[in-house]
């Protein structure tokens, strides 16, 4: 489409240079730029619409059970008997063996920080008063490096900045049973495991 010799941007749109005409018939383009006030003051007619884009997102069989077990204060995994991997979060299909996984296995609520990041903004994009450590935690009892993403509290932020949290042993801090609702937030955060370095 368009002129074969035209210069193009990264989206392959033609770049029209100033003073360059696309068509001899169009001397200047009709219409005019609009400002936000023009909409507010009703200078131009508009159509407003809110598409009805509701959805229900299902957690699937494996994660539904995982979340249900969180309500009981337990972390559950799925095992593939062919490769022997214990996977958390659980999945119903082994992507290594291309076969359904075989059994449910409870794992511990302790683990090791595989990697982490320091966040200065909240999920709502507001600035946090205190920076937050978010980590990938390999769960004890599951296969190597199988784990979940969660908050870590009770660590020194300067130590975190210095990169000293890699490999740190941590334990889940659960909400009281009556407050749990079958969500990942039933674990409030992970904290350093006492008595270990």
């Amino acid at each position: 489409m368009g002129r074969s010799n035209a210069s193009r941007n990264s989206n392959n749109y033609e770049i029209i240079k100033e003073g360059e005409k696309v068509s001899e018939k169009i001397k200047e383009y009709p219409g005019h730029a609009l400002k936000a006030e023009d909409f507010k003051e009703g200078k131009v007619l508009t159509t407003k619409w809110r598409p009805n884009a509701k959805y229900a997102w299902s957690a699937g069989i494996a994660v539904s059970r995982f979340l249900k077990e969180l309500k009981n204060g337990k972390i559950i995994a799925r095992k593939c008997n062919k490769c022997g991997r214990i996977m958390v979060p659980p999945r119903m299909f082994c992507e290594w063996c291309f076969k359904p996984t075989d059994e449910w296995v409870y794992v511990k609520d302790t683990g090791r920080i595989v990697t982490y990041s320091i966040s200065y903004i909240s999920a709502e994009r507001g600035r946090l008063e205190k920076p937050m450590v978010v980590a990938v935690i390999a769960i004890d009892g599951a296969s190597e490096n199988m784990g979940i993403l969660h908050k870590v509290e009770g660590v020194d932020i300067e130590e975190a900045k210095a990169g000293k949290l890699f490999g740190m042993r941590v334990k889940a801090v659960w909400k009281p049973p009556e407050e749990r609702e079958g969500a990942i937030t039933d674990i409030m955060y992970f904290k350093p495991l006492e008595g270990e370095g």
Partner: protein
Amino acid sequence: MNMSIEKIRDPRDIKHRFGDMEADYIYTLGVAGERFFREIKENAKIFGTKCTKCNIIYVPPRMYCERCFEELKDWIEVGSKGTVHTFTIAYVDENGNRLEKPEIWAFIKIHGTEGGFIHKLGEVDIEDVCIGMEVEAVFKEKEQRTGSITDILYFKPVK
């Protein structure tokens, strides 16, 4: 047990969450659309643009002739009467909910013009609708008009 091949037909059968995508938008009508709907809003008149070279009046109006690419500057009042080019009967609304009373939707060509638009037919029984039927626009009262296609309530048969 082979759970992974179990089919889930309804996402609400298992643990789920609801969401609503907020994809609101404001659409401007463009130069030709702006004038077209202003005339409807303020004067309850339907206007088209005329290509003198091709001798065609476009309704809804265009800025350029689709045949000769000439810029169109002649705005012509085309009246509010036209013919039913084709029609369909709707038993459900846009969300798929059953309507209490079926609605007749037609593609209407305004007399003497090229093009046309889709609108509802009123004051007519389903059994009496036919292709080629002459219809005319019924406008809302002036104070209720907002500059939208719904300023025309419906088209009714010309008696």
